[in-house]
């Protein structure tokens, strides 16, 4: 019996490991290619065609759909404006409230668990249920909110029927629904800051505000960035909330991009145009992400 008797298997251990890795990852990768990469390519193609679902005809039209959106369709710019207003209203409000709540709830005191549970509860609730209940609360004259306002002598607007107020209502109710998520991210980040920093600063006579401004806030930087990116992108994804509360109305006052894509694609069956909108959305979201990350990198 010689040493050479045992021949090497046709797969080396190293090749075997790589093969197993691809095997492990293949379901995810296959799904990713089929349901994400493929569609992403398809949407580029669709956006260059005039494709009417009803007539089942597809014609290549070049950049006509983009031209339509950017230079001819008045709705489009209103939708972009609405999306920006929605994001600009929602993101700072959400983050400020989340940080304030986190600061209040990152210490230990009786009731802290109760409050955390309360502020987080809407996050686990379905957006549909949340929208239905708030739509009910915000009914015109008979709605609960307005009845309460009337009780203290304020004549409330018909929240969801006036374009500007509808936008406010949609933003605020969405913030209440989602703020808990950012709150717990901030709480986790605050609790990860070593206590010694605060103690050292206090010994040097720093006030609460100085401690926050000069120690806590800079240390929260990375978390703030992550939260900002997630929340901004999230604001562009909002669909169900608006679909149920206002249906994009009144007078397209709450018609945002996600909803507009749905409307054009699945209600008006203008697949080419809707796909061009989807591409525009893709570019906006990617652009925003890159800009925010770049800004942050320059900062630090």
């Amino acid at each position, binding site marked *: 019996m010689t040493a050479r008797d045992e021949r090497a298997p046709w797969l080396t251990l190293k090749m075997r490991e790589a093969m197993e890795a691809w095997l492990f990852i293949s379901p995810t990768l296959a799904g990713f290619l089929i349901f994400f990469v493929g569609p992403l390519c398809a949407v580029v193609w669709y956006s260059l065609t005039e494709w009417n679902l009803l007539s089942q005809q597809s014609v290549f039209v070049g950049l006509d759909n983009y031209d339509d959106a950017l230079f001819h369709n008045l709705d489009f710019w209103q939708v972009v404006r609405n999306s920006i207003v929605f994001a600009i209203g929602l993101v700072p409000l959400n983050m400020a409230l989340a940080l304030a709540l986190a600061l209040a709830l990152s210490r230990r005191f009786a009731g802290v668990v109760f409050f955390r549970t309360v502020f987080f509860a809407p996050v686990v609730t379905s957006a549909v249920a949340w929208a239905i209940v708030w739509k009910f609360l915000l009914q015109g004259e008979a709605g609960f909110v307005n009845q309460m306002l009337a009780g203290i002598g304020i004549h409330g607007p018909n929240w969801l029927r006036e374009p500007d107020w509808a936008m406010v209502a949609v933003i605020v109710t969405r913030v209440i629904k989602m703020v808990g998520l950012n709150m*717990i991210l901030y709480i986790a980040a605050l609790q990860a800051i070593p206590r010694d920093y605060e103690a050292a600063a206090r010994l040097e006579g720093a006030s609460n505000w100085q401690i926050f401004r000069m120690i806590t806030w800079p240390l929260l930087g990375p978390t703030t960035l992550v939260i900002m990116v997630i929340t901004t992108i999230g604001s562009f994804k909002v669909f169900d909330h608006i679909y149920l509360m206002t249906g994009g109305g009144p007078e397209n006052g709450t018609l945002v991009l996600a909803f507009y894509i749905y409307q054009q694609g699945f209600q008006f069956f203008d697949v080419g145009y809707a796909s061009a909108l989807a591409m525009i959305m893709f570019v906006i979201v990617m652009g925003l992400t890159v800009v925010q990350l770049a800004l942050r990198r320059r900062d630090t």
Partner: protein
Amino acid sequence: MIGSLTQRQLRAVKQICWTLALCVVAIPFVFPFLWMISSGLKGPSEIFGQPSLIPTSFRWNNYLEVFNYQPFARQYFNSLYIAVTVTLLTLFISSLAGYALARLRFAGAALVALFLVSALMVPEEVTIIPNFFLIRWLGLSDTHWPLILLPVFGSQGIVGTFLMRQYFLALPKELEDAGKMDGLSRFGVWWRIALPMSRPALAAVAIITFLNSWNLFLEPLIFISSLEKFTLPLALSNFTDPYGSPLWHLQLAATTLAVLPILMVYLIAQRQIIESFALSGVKG
């Protein structure tokens, strides 16, 4: 006079003020739930009458009507079994992929991870139109398949993959080496050592995946047309009179039925659930 208070008393007073302020802020977070339950027990006329948290007469009948109006039990079951299926599939697939990304050496690992992460940034609205045609081409329109396939292989599955990867990376590697020395195959190491030690991560993935599926709206709206195939969110939005106005008392009763069980589970396991979301957010 303030000056006569001791440090300790001062702190107590401050704490009470803070707590009161937090209670005020909490109102819009809690009240909608209370009002939902209350209004779901009122009749169509009382619902817009003088506001009162306790209904003048409890109309339990609303809850019967909910089931007569549409096949609500069937729809409830649809949501439940779809969410369970999606959760189990996601756990299986994302923990496999997460393990490969965390532990196995292969050319292209970094690239695969980068591709998957970038997909997280893209809203599903971008790809929903081609996916609609894909599902139709596969002959799966008006079935529950898209409601299972799209979340499992979409961003939810990717979130799960990275959550698992992060957790696997932190596990002591020597345990898996010991498993290999004991004769386990790669699959065996994953199944019998890595997974049993990853219960917290698996629980986190399960929780966020289940809730995501349970609350899914856009996909059912686009793919499902038959009433008996509706899921809960779609069913809830469907309590309307023939002219499209909401039948509030039924809608709110049904919403209560949909929300309350989840809320109960949340109250019992709030710590674990909140941690799960924190875990999934931090990695993003």
